[in-house]
């Protein structure tokens, strides 16, 4: 079995004349955290949708957990997905929602129950688990969304902005949880705009701009980019590579 949890070769997605993702090639090892960065509209969500089989690529190929993304039935048992808006029902309580997802995934009842309790406790949701989700705050909804995405211990978890709406304590719990999951050999594909989160957690960072991968490497390597020869923050790197890409595309002077 390959050591790669995710492999894409020339992955491309076009909507009519518009190219959302262009010729994307990634190799992500098992049990690592891949930080996926990019400005708004860069194609991050489209990439995640392709990798989670929610939309079909118009070019290239990809495998997730060793299965082609063309084979939806083979991929889905191995993945968990938290989209930007948590896919949860207002009318259910937090516990009912998680039990529902456990049933949908046909997880053994007792094991699922134990894991639900563990995760609820970890995210400080145990007391509120009996309340309906429409009474939850944005952060509480986000927590339920994350728990249901990893409840079945998938090989690869795709998390789109998992710390969005969380208070500092909850955000810390989320970061610790992601680190723990990676320790348990779960691969985390993490899309976020919060650079310190990626800086702290990611083994590798990829920066997407205008649908193309414009930089990739470990956080340290990116911060010590050969071009500058100077140490900078991840924010400096992000601004630099996306500006460079802009310059290359427009063939004009780079901004000072």
């Amino acid at each position: 079995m390959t050591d790669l949890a995710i492999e894409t070769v020339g992955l491309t997605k076009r909507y009519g004349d518009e190219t959302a993702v262009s010729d994307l090639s990634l190799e992500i090892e098992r049990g690592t955290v891949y930080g996926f960065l990019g400005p708004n509209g860069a194609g991050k969500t489209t990439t995640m949708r392709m990798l989670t089989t929610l939309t079909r690529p118009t070019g290239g190929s990809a495998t997730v957990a060793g299965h082609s993304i063309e084979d939806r039935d083979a991929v889905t048992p191995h993945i968990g997905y938290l989209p930007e808006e948590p896919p949860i029902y207002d009318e259910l309580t937090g516990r009912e929602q998680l039990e529902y997802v456990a049933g949908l995934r046909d997880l053994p009842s007792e094991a699922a129950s134990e894991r639900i309790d563990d995760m609820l406790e970890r995210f400080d949701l145990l007391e509120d688990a009996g309340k309906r989700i429409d009474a939850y705050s944005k952060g509480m909804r986000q927590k339920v969304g994350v728990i249901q995405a990893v409840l079945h211990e998938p090989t690869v978890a795709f998390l789109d902005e998992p710390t969005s709406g969380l208070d500092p304590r909850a955000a810390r719990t989320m970061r610790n949880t992601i680190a723990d999951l990676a320790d348990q050999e779960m691969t985390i594909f993490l899309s976020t705009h919060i650079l310190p989160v990626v800086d702290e957690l990611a083994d590798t960072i990829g920066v997407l701009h205008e649908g193309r991968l414009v930089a990739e490497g470990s956080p340290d390597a990116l911060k010590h980019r050969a071009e500058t020869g100077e140490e900078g923050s991840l924010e400096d790197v992000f601004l630099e590579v996306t500006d460079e890409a802009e310059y290359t595309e427009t063939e004009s002077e780079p901004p000072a």
Partner: protein
Amino acid sequence: MKRAATIALVAAVRHRVELRRRRDHPQLGVAVFLGAAVGTLFIVGSLPLPYYGSFWPEPGAFHYGTLVAEEPGRVLARGRETAAIALVVITGLAGLSATTSEDWDEPPVELLTAVALPTAIFGVLGDELLESSWFVVPVAIAGSLAFVAGTGRLAVLAGVLVGSLAIVTTGLVAGTAVGLGVRAAIRGSPRLYRSRNAVGFVALFVTFVGLVASRTAGGALARTPLGWYGDLLLVTTPGVGANVASGAVALVATGAALAVALTVVVASARVLWFAEVDHDHDRDRTRASGDESDGTRSETIQSSVTAPLEAVLERLCSRPTMAVARATWRRIRRSPNALVFVVLPFAIVGPATANLAARWPRLVPVLVTLYAAAAVGLGTTLNPIGNERIALPAILTTPAGRRSVLRGHAVASLVPGVPIVVAVAVVAGSAIGYSAGQLAALVAIALALTVGGVGVSLGIGSFLPNPKGPTPASLSPPELYAMVGYLFAMSVLATPAFAGFAAIGAVNANATGLPALPVAGPVLGVALTTLLAGAAGFAGYRYAARTLDRYEAGDGRRRYRND
């Protein structure tokens, strides 16, 4: 002047958004077109065109236009009647729309932080009126033109157009005011507020049925001041004797009604957008969630009743299917508005039964069975994709998610539905004196229509989903046009059964007035309905499954950049 421009801008932009939504779901536009087309056929009526008479023989505006010279009194009476009924119907439709619209649920913060409150309210109102006008205005214009064409005099047009405009404007604005007023009045009671769609829909439908069924209702309405709008319509039609004073009063009344209605709209919108009802809502919600002791007790009792049933079902269905069914029951219990259309057959079964009982009493059990079976498919199965919209990414990335979600919704409808429909069929058949064989045939039809109907419902609901709900994550009632299409399909499926039972009557007692038929006729009718329902149900389920299979996240956002 500046305020008027701002209101127009708000209404236009909001309406543009709605039109773009319809462009993403073109079937909605087709449905509105079909609705307006049927309304136009009714109002225009028969036309002197080849074969048109056999297609639409009912007289309408054109026909009465041709009678102006010969029977002016009859034209005036019909004009007053039509105007009065049109006012009631338009007011009712606008009222229902205002009662159910989500635009009045939450204050539009982007407007309230930018413009004065009345400007925001009138902007939202303008959008709502524009939306309703897509359905009402073409019918009004077609009726006006048909009447003018019938008279052959262009001078008639002025009065007819002014009258139509007065009727449409008064109906739409007054109806919106009534709907919002009622909504504001019940805002303090979460239970009543949640039931507003169902109650409003049934009230409107009963009114329609009353107007259609009762031949005297139109005349009675015409004798009220509503009939004066008929005088306004005909005031420039020479020779019919329209009362000019009554027409003028109608015109003044239009202005007064608009002023009062707009005041009510502003006051009601203020209450709806800024009402503080959280305490009641929370208490109600907590009870539903089983947090308080009362709620816990009720859920425990409920659980002890349903547990054996669920245990049986778990042996018959896969665990994922049961998970969906169980979640659907919970969601329905807490969002009963999603079942608004289920009450529809119960609202119309009475008048329809009374109508049928007078002519063919032996067909009444078939009709009652059809209505009961149709009600089963009017719940969540008629909007399977719309009800899962926010959860689709989770469902589609789950191995058995696609199949389980459709089967789960079907099981959630069929488990309570099948025994109820069979019981209704047996009771209705026994009451009318069906033999054992006839009862067995009726039960077969009940089963076929219920099970097949759910499949049809899944198919039509997938073709015409309602992607809008109170919140992105809550259940929403099916699309109105999906409901109409589904009821039409169910009627078609039941037609052979009606023919078959009519023939049984003929065989047994010649009670229907039809010629006596061999026994094979009734059997064939029942078998045909069973086969058709099975085939249509299977096709509907397959279509829904294929729609989910082909579903691509982000399809509706193709015009926009994807993050």
